[in-house]
């Protein structure tokens, strides 16, 4: 088990170094920074002096080494827009994103688990048909559009909930629904199909044959078997939500990481964009590691010993 964790941490570190490298290359490809920094009438000598000052005259490998050693210390430079270190700017906004992502995830799970389980248990019944409709709508309607609809109907017309901003629980509801919308559809479909397979299995038949109540068979004995593929999906979607619920945060003016990165993109605030990409990849690696470790608790066959 410990060895497995070490191995996965090592793999995660490699993935993050890979992300850093891509960020570094992308920065070089986006044009000569000296040209942006110097005035129009600068001379050839000014350019050369500036390159030496920024270290751009040094070999490529050395430049990456310097970038890398700054990056692992969380130093991506100061934001042009906010005049503060880029990574700490994003980390300040991480709690807001975490809050929204958790709320979106809870919404998705609370809706998808009963829908997926009951639609499999009562295949062809009204719950199954409702779930199908949800799944279709969920996959056909993009999150930003659902967000706009919610704002127009719930916030503007009915005035039940605030349309934007962060603060009270009421502020959280609409963006959480918009964010969880797509995962509900995907999770319901996955859960339904794995539950259908499991409910036909020999061990479920054996459990029925010894008189285990159907309710217990569905919610305990079958659902736990269906949990592994579900947890995989939960991990992927949660990492996505954390790494950047860009669109939803913009639509609802949610002061999180995603919106800040989008603003930074428009303002060509490179340090913040870079820090955002690296933060997202770290989050992805960590969440996936947690998901992989959780398999062992659900399914004893996947215990890493």
């Amino acid at each position: 088990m410990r060895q497995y964790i070490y191995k996965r941490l090592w793999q995660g570190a490699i993935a993050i170094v890979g992300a850093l490298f891509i960020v570094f290359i992308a920065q070089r490809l986006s044009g000569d920074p000296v040209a942006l920094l110097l005035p129009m009438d600068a001379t050839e000598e000014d350019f050369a002096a500036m390159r030496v000052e920024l270290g751009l005259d040094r070999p490529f490998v050395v430049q990456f080494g310097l970038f890398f050693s700054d990056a692992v210390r969380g130093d991506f430079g100061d934001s042009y827009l906010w005049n503060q270190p880029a990574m700490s700017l994003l980390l300040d906004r991480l709690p807001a994103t975490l809050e929204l992502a958790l709320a979106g995830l809870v919404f998705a799970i609370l809706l998808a688990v009963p829908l997926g389980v009951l639609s499999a248990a009562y295949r062809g019944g009204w719950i199954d048909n409702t779930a199908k409709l949800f799944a279709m709508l969920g996959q056909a309607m993009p999150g930003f559009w659902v967000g706009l609809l919610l704002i127009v109907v719930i916030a503007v017309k009915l005035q039940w909930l605030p349309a934007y901003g962060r603060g009270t629980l009421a502020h959280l509801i609409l963006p959480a629904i918009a964010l969880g919308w797509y995962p509900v559809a995907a999770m319901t479909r996955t859960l339904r199909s794995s539950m259908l397979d499991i409910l036909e299995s020999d061990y479920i038949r054996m459990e029925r044959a010894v008189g285990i109540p159907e309710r217990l068979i569905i919610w305990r004995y079958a659902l736990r078997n269906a949990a592994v593929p579900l947890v995989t999906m939960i991990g992927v979607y949660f990492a996505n939500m954390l790494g950047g619920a860009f669109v939803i945060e913009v639509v609802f003016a949610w002061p999180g990481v995603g919106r800040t990165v989008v603003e930074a993109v428009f303002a060509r605030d490179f340090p913040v964009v870079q820090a955002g990409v690296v933060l997202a990849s770290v989050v992805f690696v960590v969440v996936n590691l947690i998901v992989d470790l959780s398999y062992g608790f659900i399914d004893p066959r996947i215990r890493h010993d």
Partner: protein
Amino acid sequence: MDKLLSVDGLKTHFFLKRGVVKAVDGVSFALAAGETLGLIGESGSGKTVTGLSILGLPPRPAGRIVAGSIRLDGVELVGLSERTLASEIRGRKIAMISQDPMSSLNPVFTVGSQVAAPIRAHGLARGRSAMDLAIDELARVRVPSATERAGNYPHQFSGGMRQRVVAAMAIACKPRLLIADEPTSALDVTIQVQFMDLIESIQAETGAGLLFVTHDLGVAASLCHRIAVMYAGQIVESADVRTLYANPAHPYTQGLLESLPKLGARQSRLSSIKGTPPDPLSLPDGCAFHPRCPHATDRCRQQAPPSIDLGDGQRASCWLLENA
């Protein structure tokens, strides 16, 4: 009658888009406490569906019991609600040992908790004491070091041991009737023998009736008191085990026995029953076996034969026996 189980005119049909499959079509038999009845037939003959119907679990959603009666200790089971069947019959009075030990245990629960599940479900014990009873049952089916093994998961057991766990789960609430559906066909021969010994000793201990569903004539001969041979959803012959093996009356039974290899006999080729089992969606008119029967007459092709009493508890459904 002092019969434990009596099945009378049972019909379980499958309603499919392509038509109706009469998987079980008028099956009648009886079983006394402590008795073992072998239900023998090829795949698709309806023997497994008969067993499942007795449990009130015909394969869903297509399968349905459409006629007949199943009485256990004189109590009619056909028509009982699903809730009553689950809480009072299955596991408590009738239990099943299913076919494939590799797939019959839930992979994500410990074997102890799976054996304890019916004990808890039927309210015989709760919590820790249910687990203690489960461990007793595991010991009874001779799982070595049952106390420690109860905390293991199915994938940590061999096939033979898993089948014992399945048996422990089935007998945990001391059912009056055990249905064993091909419990040995997935096991090695040596493990088969051990497992059959185990079943016999369980039966001797509990006095339960045993309905043994199998396609294996050898296993059935060694374990059963009586045999019922099924073909195309019907019982074509039933007799006590000696009579059946010594004097098979129905051409299908004769064919089955002739297709067994015999010790000491010089045979260049095993004989076999020609043809294949009929398409369940369109059974032949008359006797369902007539297209494969070496003695078929015009009458066999037109009219289904009645069940004829041949004395000594032997019955067979065949026109050839009418005047015998």
